[in-house]
């Protein structure tokens, strides 16, 4: 290794090391924490009074908690797309994005697990799932696959980071003053960087990358089965697994573009997350938009062509009834406009790709709401002999507070991770540079 490459190496370590928050960063963390605390306060109210603090009822027995859960499970799928599928396909350009995708996956799947407990009438009986499990229930399948996915995702976040942690524990950077280096040391204490260790670590990552793909397909397919295994119009669909998985990849890819943009701006990482990354991720998002649009057409056009009696009330309420504004918002803002932007070269510039991705993610959130609630308002027998408030649904302030608190919680985890851990893989970047130089020589 010559002197110039050593200087370069120092420069990379300096640039990619975690940095302290700017003023905006501090405000951002405070704002997220406040939203989380309001959500926590609402949840304590719910624990005391019961689910009566929500506006759910005997007909709309699943509301914003469940749609928020589906949203979290969906967005977490991106971890497998970028870390595993792209890695196994030897796609080089996605390497700086792997850790962004993986931390989105870990935080989202963690919050998904929390929000499903929030929805339980008896959260203190959670252990019954282990004490009296019945394996034929799709909920049990969901518990198993989400637990597995969480563990694999954490490992996929950790294993590639070990060399970076070792590097940081030794590096003489600004970090030393602000973060107890003991944690880096602890997490990488066994790492010597020997060729055997590197080989083993590489193998482990490959095995995990292969494992996570079927598990990722399972988490969202099983989540779709929570609906598709019932008889209800709007849910009783064989299209649901593929429809959910495609939508999940879309919202996850959108989430990665948003995170890329924010992290790049906040940490001045223009050399590492380049315009080419936005261009390529933009292409991925537009492809996934088309894929999701395709499944949407299947999901709505086929039943609408037949207009079976139980489907009719449901579909007309979506297309032209009280849910129509939200439905068309999710289609137009969540899919069509992003396609029109991202299909152009100029639309894949960082700013436009960021804007289109925000549309994708917001549209996706409302899409999950549309999948859960309208169906429950059209039971197979008419609504009858219940209090009037059970015949319609709009979330209560507690439900909004808890849902927004969970979204803020996921963003807080990502923010704090970026603050304390290297979000762009340092060692891989150095190796990449060295290899390039070797080629030149």
């Amino acid at each position, binding site marked *: 290794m010559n002197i110039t490459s050593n200087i370069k190496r120092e420069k990379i370590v300096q640039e990619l090391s975690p940095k302290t928050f700017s003023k905006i960063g501090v405000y951002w963390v405070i704002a997220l924490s406040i939203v989380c605390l309001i959500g926590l306060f609402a949840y304590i109210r719910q624990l005391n009074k019961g689910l009566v603090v929500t506006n759910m009822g005997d007909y709309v*027995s699943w509301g914003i908690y469940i749609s928020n859960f589906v949203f979290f499970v969906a967005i977490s799928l991106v971890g497998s797309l970028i870390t595993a599928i792209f890695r196994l396909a030897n796609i080089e350009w996605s390497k700086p994005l792997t850790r962004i995708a993986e931390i989105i996956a870990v935080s989202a799947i963690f919050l998904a697990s929390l929000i499903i407990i929030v929805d339980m009438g008896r959260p203190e009986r959670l252990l019954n*799932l282990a*004490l009296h499990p*019945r394996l034929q*229930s799709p909920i049990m399948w969901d518990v198993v696959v989400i637990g597995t996915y969480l563990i694999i995702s954490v490992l996929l976040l950790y294993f590639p980071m070990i060399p970076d942690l070792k590097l940081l524990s030794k590096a003489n950077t600004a970090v030393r003053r602000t973060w107890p280096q003991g944690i880096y040391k602890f997490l990488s204490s066994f790492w010597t960087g020997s060729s055997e260790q590197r080989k083993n670590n590489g193998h482990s990552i490959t095995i995990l990358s292969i494992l996570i793909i079927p598990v990722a397909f399972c988490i969202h397919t099983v989540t779709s089965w929570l609906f598709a295994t019932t008889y209800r119009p709007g849910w009783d669909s064989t299209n649901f697994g593929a429809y959910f998985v495609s939508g999940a990849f879309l919202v996850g890819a959108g989430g990665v573009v948003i995170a890329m943009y924010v992290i790049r701006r906040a940490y001045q990482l223009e050399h590492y997350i380049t315009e080419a990354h936005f261009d390529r991720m933009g292409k991925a998002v537009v492809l996934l938009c088309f894929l999701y649009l395709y499944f949407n057409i299947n999901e709505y056009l086929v039943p609408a062509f037949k207009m079976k*009696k139980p489907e009719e009330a449901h579909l007309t309420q979506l297309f032209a009834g009280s849910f129509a504004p939200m439905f068309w918002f999710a289609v137009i803002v969540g899919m069509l406009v992003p396609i029109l932007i991202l299909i152009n070269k100029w639309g894949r510039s960082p700013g436009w790709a960021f804007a289109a991705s925000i549309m994708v993610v917001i549209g996706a959130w409302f899409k999950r709401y549309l999948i859960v609630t309208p169906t429950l308002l059209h039971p197979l027998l008419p609504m009858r002999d219940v209090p009037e408030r059970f015949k319609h649904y709009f979330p209560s302030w507690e439900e909004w507070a808890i849902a927004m608190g969970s979204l803020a919680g996921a963003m807080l985890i990502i923010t704090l991770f970026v603050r304390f851990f290297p979000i762009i893989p340092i060692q891989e970047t150095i190796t990449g540079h060295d290899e390039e130089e070797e080629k030149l020589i």
Partner: protein
Amino acid sequence: MKNKSENTRRSFLAKGLAAAFLASACNTKSNPFQPEDSVEPSGEKVRLLSVDGEIIEVDKAFLKPVPELPKISNESERIGIPDKKLVMVIDLSRCKNLKKCQEACNHMHHVHPGQSWIKVYGMKDADHTAPYWQPTTCMHCDEPPCVKVCPVDATFKRQDGAVLIDSDRCIGCRFCMAACPYSTRVFNWEEPLIPLEIAKQEYHCETSVPQKKGTVGKCDFCPDMVRQGELPHCVSACPNGVFFFGDMYEDSVTNGAETFRFTELIRDKAGYRLMEDLGTKPSVYYLPPVNRNFPYETGLKNEPDPTEASNHH
């Protein structure tokens, strides 16, 4: 002939009511009431609360001590009553939306105010078909979608056909509510409003009492009444004999006054089940609303909002 049977049914009901009331009111082991051999009216009246929530006067001689029923363990409650297959037949030609079934059921199970385990639908199948009243209980399906989806075995299917809920085990995920195509399940969104002495009782799957916050409730076919040789509360509360209850193995169903062979009744009156196409195989059968005892309109006066009754498929 018909009058006579009505009379015996009434007195049977009164006794049943008194006994049922005592069953829920007296939990002490030492019973203050002495058994009486004769049923000669003593002239001494006692005021009791009926299943409909009304105060009624009953001669003291009719009061019977509550027999000490052996406590049934959760395990045997999950197995069911041996050698029985419970079945219900609902005769739609007799219903006029009196909702006495609903009142009795809600009262005896201490269902939270505003919610009901029995619902009486004003049905109209198509634009030019005749409307009719359709009471629904839990269908106690032989292929119960709710049981399939329960992750903790809190709702289960028994040998005798009943689908019951263990409120001490339910985690409140409400998947069963989403899965049930008959919308028969209700959820205790808050602490259910029940008398303290009832709320303190130990929960039993066969009585479904007391209902608990954060768990699901529904019609249980009253297996506790079956064990006592009595009819479910809805059956005995209906003055029009709409509900027939019985045992498929014995091939008989009764509404208290009339008894029929189940297979003959279903064959002769073309009985059917709700949403047969779903394959849920309900234990509740319906007799079509032909040759009706009452015109549909007589039931409308029991509607809170009469326009509401005829607005569905």
